[in-house]
């Protein structure tokens, strides 16, 4: 392979692998910036993946290929509803948020596999007939270099992911709602004094995280495994959390980190055919996202600091 051919293979593939991470990472970010730990996104992705595959299988005959959008929409709603469990426990019941995250992850996996067995009488679903397909953007793909690099094998959901990330940045940093959300995550008492409803803001943030993680799960399931079983989502949610931290709790940083982790995944999956990369042991590429996250937190790659009030339930009138 020539260098250009390698690039034309790696870059679209990295964006492809990054797409579900972007949705889920931005979801986790909304939750954490409001002060609620986002560990449950792994489970919310499971819910999204199951819902997406279920809707795709059941309604393909009705909607044809457009069913992928119906499936993503259903996963969005399912994720938002399921995340209410996190919200109620973490915000109203003042539960330990890390434990709730673990419980939600266990519950989501158990519940969806239970439902698969109930509906299909077997441990995994059939393959979907309408996966999310890539397409070529006319005119733009004719641009030399950039065309084959960015516009030749595009997934519509990837474009959507970029829009979500940039939109999240706009909402969080340029809109009053975003300012309120961030203030609730940094200093809830000050926010409360200024008349911001802390509990309501956190409920909304957690539900946004549920919706986006649900979309992330549905996008992942409909592009890569194309079915649903107990091992469809194994750690993608946690990589998304890693991307959020590596991106320093900033939407654009998260976008960049997700793209970088997508690159690592591309290299670990398809690196065998790429010169130089094939000499790196596979395990190095597999553990790269996790090790980098630890290094980022340790301060070797710029300091990553979490929102101040993350994980602490807000109790009115308590100093």
């Amino acid at each position, binding site marked *: 392979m020539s260098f250009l051919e390698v690039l034309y293979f790696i870059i679209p593939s990295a964006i492809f692998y990054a797409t579900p991470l972007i949705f889920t990472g931005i979801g986790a970010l909304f939750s954490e910036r409001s002060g609620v730990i986002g560990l449950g996104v792994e489970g919310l992705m499971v819910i999204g993946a199951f819902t997406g595959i279920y809707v795709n299988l059941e309604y393909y005959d009705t909607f044809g290929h457009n069913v992928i959008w119906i499936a993503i929409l259903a996963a969005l709603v399912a994720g938002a509803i399921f995340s209410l469990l996190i919200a109620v426990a973490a915000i109203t019941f003042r539960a330990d948020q890390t434990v709730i995250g673990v419980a939600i992850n266990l519950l989501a996996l158990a519940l969806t596999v239970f439902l698969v067995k109930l509906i299909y009488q077997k441990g995994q679903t059939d393959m979907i007939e309408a996966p999310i397909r890539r397409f070529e953007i006319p005119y733009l793909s004719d641009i030399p270099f950039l065309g084959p690099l960015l516009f030749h094998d595009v997934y519509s959901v990837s474009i959507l992911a970029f829009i979500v990330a940039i939109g999240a940045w706009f909402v969080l940093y340029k809109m009053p709602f975003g300012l309120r959300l961030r203030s609730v995550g940094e200093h809830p008492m000050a926010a409360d004094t200024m008349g911001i409803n802390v509990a309501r803001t956190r409920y909304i943030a957690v539900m946004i995280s549920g919706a986006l993680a649900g979309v992330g799960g549905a996008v992942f399931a409909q592009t890569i495994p194309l079915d649903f079983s107990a091992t469809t989502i194994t750690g993608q949610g946690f990589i998304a959390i890693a991307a959020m931290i590596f991106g320093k709790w900033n939407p654009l940083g998260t976008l960049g980190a997700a793209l970088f982790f997508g690159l690592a995944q591309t290299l670990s999956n398809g690196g065998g055919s790429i010169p130089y990369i094939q000499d790196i042991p596979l395990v190095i590429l597999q553990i790269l996202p996790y090790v980098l996250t630890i290094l980022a937190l*340790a301060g070797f790659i710029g300091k990553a600091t979490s929102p101040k009030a993350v994980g602490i339930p807000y109790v009115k009138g308590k100093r």
Partner: protein
Amino acid sequence: MNSRVVNILVPVISIIIGLIVGAIVMLVSGYDPVQGYIALWEGIFGDSYSIGNTIRQITPYILAGLAVAFAFRTGLFNIGVEGQLLMGWLAAAWVGYAVDLPRIIHLPLALLAAAAAGAFWAFLVGFLKARFNVHEVISSIMLNYTALYVMNAIIKQITDGGYKTETVAETATLRWQWLRDITDNSSLHLGIIVALLMVLLMWFILEKTTRGYELKSVGFNHHASEYAGMSVKKNIILAMTISGVFAGLAGAMEALGTYQNASIKAAMSGIGFDGIAVALLGANTPLGVVFGASLFGSLKYGALNMPNAAGIPEEIVSIIIALIIFFVASGYIIRVVLEKMGKKKEAK
């Protein structure tokens, strides 16, 4: 109601609500919950074979629960038991087949290797927290996946591309024919004794040693401990390392007892995460962990009987376990309700 009673009531009420919601889920799904729970009971206590395997299932849960509980008592959340367990699993399996020694040395050596591997993996978390202020929850989650891939890579390396190591030697196995004979050839092994010894050890460290007192005190209030002249950083690292010893031994139970080897894994074993549930239910005390592990281990093993005996997917039990954790963690609201009920009674 005094706080001691409430502390015991919260987990009990959580278990009851969990079982009730589980029954509702079965009912809504068109299954018979009574039959389901009978099948579950039969799967746990039905015959000596089931009892043997149930105890085998409880064994790693006790150790994983101890690992989480010990860290909790010292103010740390060890969500990385899963990774430490995998490292212990690999180390025990490797020492178990690769060296040739008499049983009296070989078995302890394999256990020690597992403990050391788990301890090292947890030490990293403690060191990162003490030295660089990296939150232990994040670093240990990252190390879980690192452990998974590293373990798979090492197994591939030492077996020339195979997917599981050789079976551990007769001199390193925790299996004991007598135990299998009295339980109708179940896979019950000596590990339960190791686990119970560790329960004693944790109790001894926390309640009877100066170091244990320091560890607990750092967990309660690290500012006060620092002021009293204790080294907070040293205690954080030590606490994580001891927690990792328990987790590594949990891996040894799987390597030397249940599976007799280590194999390449597509996903986490789940024991580490269930350990969080065990510790939480047992209020982070050594004896409580035994109860928690007994409950969740029994439920997990008994569930395997549900598809055959009642036609219900065994995942129903995982749903119930997740719900129990959910309710125990939401203990605040249960406490509020209990207090209100207590006040009403007093008013009468």
